[in-house]
């Protein structure tokens, strides 16, 4: 276990260092990407440009610039934005992270429960009308773009039917911290959770069904039948358990990416100031310090989610050794 932690930490540091260098080079060293001209604005005179360049330390050698940025990000924690001068970057990320985490964690609960329910029900009623309807619904869920679905949800619950008994509980767009008002936190996030989860419920439900169908052909399922076990026990205790491996793999990848900012569209549609929104705004302004900070944060979560997946593997399948 200890060696696993060490290995994972080393892996995480390696990934984060690689990504930071890559991001830095993309914005500073690729031809035509002159941050100074961006900061100075259009039609800036050469003198202004030079002043800006000096001011932001952009006239120093690239490795020095990189080292300085890393130092201010990780050691002194006082990295400031290029765009809103004096605005510290780290508090911004710290403020945005709980929003994204709330959104993605809640959606993950919905999509894990929902897709396992759908996958199991579809296999239990295999080739029947229920199975086909569920799989068709899954396909529809996958096909609906989240920004479109989000806008429709908003249109229905915030505007057209807001004054009916059905949706009068829906609070206005925005985010309320859990520590502030847990009930309001839940109410504001319920619709974003469902909106974000629908794609994954459809996707995971279909994947799980395919895996379960495969597992039900295995010899050990025949053994379980020969033991006189009930079909539901065979499905839930034998087939589902072994089918969760692929499910967990997918989950690790998607969860990491979403926490890292992949939930941008949902955040924008529902007015949640999360990490996705922060990254998006920073990219539009080429606000490199902010980009760097959010990318570091995202890569941390991707590696972290993968480490969790590895632990989940070992719990699910004893043949996987944690060494």
């Amino acid at each position, binding site marked *: 276990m200890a060696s696993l932690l060490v290995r994972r930490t080393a892996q995480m540091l390696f990934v984060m260092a690689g990504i930071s260098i890559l991001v830095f080079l993309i914005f500073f060293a690729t031809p035509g990407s002159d941050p100074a001209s961006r900061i100075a604005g259009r039609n800036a005179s050469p003198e202004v440009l030079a002043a800006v360049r000096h001011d932001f330390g952009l006239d120093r050698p690239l490795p020095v610039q990189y080292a300085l940025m890393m130092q201010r990000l990780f050691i002194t924690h006082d990295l400031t934005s290029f765009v809103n001068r004096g605005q510290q970057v780290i508090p911004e990320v710290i403020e945005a992270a709980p929003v994204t985490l709330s959104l993605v964690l809640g959606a993950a609960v919905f999509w894990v429960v929902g897709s396992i329910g759908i996958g199991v029900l579809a296999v239990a009623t295999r080739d029947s009308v229920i199975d086909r309807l569920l799989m068709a619904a899954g396909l529809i869920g996958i096909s609906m773009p989240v920004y479109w679905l989000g806008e429709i949800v908003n249109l229905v619950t915030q505007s057209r039917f807001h004054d009916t008994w059905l949706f009068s509980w829906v609070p206005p767009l925005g985010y309320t911290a859990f520590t502030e008002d847990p009930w309001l936190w839940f109410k504001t996030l319920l619709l974003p959770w469902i909106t974000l989860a629908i794609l994954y419920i459809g996707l995971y439900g279909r994947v799980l069904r395919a895996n379960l169908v495969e597992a039900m052909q295995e010899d050990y399922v025949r*053994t379980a039948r020969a033991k006189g076990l009930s079909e539901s026990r065979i499905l839930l205790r034998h087939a589902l358990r072994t089918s969760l491996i692929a499910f967990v793999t997918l989950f690790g990848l998607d969860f990491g990416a979403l926490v890292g900012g992949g939930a941008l569209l949902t955040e924008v549609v529902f007015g949640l100031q999360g990490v996705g929104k922060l990254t998006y705004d920073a990219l539009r302004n080429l606000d490199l310090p902010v980009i760097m900070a959010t990318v570091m944060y995202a890569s941390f979560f991707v590696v972290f989610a993968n480490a969790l997946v590895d632990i989940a593997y070992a719990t699910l399948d004893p043949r996987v050794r944690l060494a």
Partner: protein
Amino acid sequence: MPEALESRLEVPLLEVRDLRVSFRTERGLLLAVDTISFRVDTREIVGVVGESGSGKTVSLMSVMGLITDPNAVIGGSILYKGRELVGLSQRQLRSVRGSEIAMIFQDPMTALTPVYTIGWQIEEQIRAHLDLPRSKARRRAIELLGEVGIPDPASTVDRFPHELSGGMRQRAFIAMALSCNPSLLIADEPTTALDVTVQAQILELLEKLRRDFGSSIIIVTHDLGVVAEIADRVMVMYAGRIVERVSKRDIFTRPWHPYTWALHDSIPPLEGDKPHRLPSIPGSPPSLTSLPPGCAFAPRCRYRFAKCAERPALESEEGHAAACHLSVDERARFYATRRQEQA
């Protein structure tokens, strides 16, 4: 013959009558098992021999009600202790499976769920049929593992299938099959996936089960050596039919069906010079969708004659039966010449 009469009056443990198993396919109805009948008595070990696709596994799976293919059509009658199994609901069958009739499979690696310990899987079966608390089920599991010859059963009970050797896995599987004291054990090629030395140990274990527990065993195999080791009676199957039903003694001294002879030839001799190449049966088994109207083995048979275009019935004489048009004398003569050729 008062003895024979007595055994006939007694209700057999398992009696299969005119069992037909067919599958609806795109190319028409595929008859996997064509009207077979056999019985298994208490404390009897019956061997079922045949090559792949001869219907041996399918017929035994239908005894267990384990054919889940919705396109399967099962006809005939399967009487277990006088109770009809064909047409029972899955729920009713569940009370028979595992507790009355248990099954052992070819490959114990894939036949055990990889993510649970041996003990968990044995306890699961015990608790599915008996109302036992977990602690007692566990004690019983350890006991069973000891009985099938697993050293240190108290620690093996917490091992996962992949942590055991092939032979130990098969022993653990047998322990699981025995957990509810079944009266009938169906073993589907239980030694095929194992090393030769381990094979002998597993067969010994099955023999011991009959001795100590009084179980009847049906053992499916394509290996006549396994039959020689353990079975009392043998059924030889070809293309979904029983072509010969014979005692263990007679299958080696005076087999009746040319297919059985051919199976004999494919066993390497223990004495004398090794043949350069083992003789094989010319041709290949017929496709079940296009069976010849007469004897299914005729196209591959050296001894076929005009009458083989008609389907031979399984005719028995003093407990020895064969589905062949050759007369008893001809069978003896042809088999003798065949032996000489081989020598």
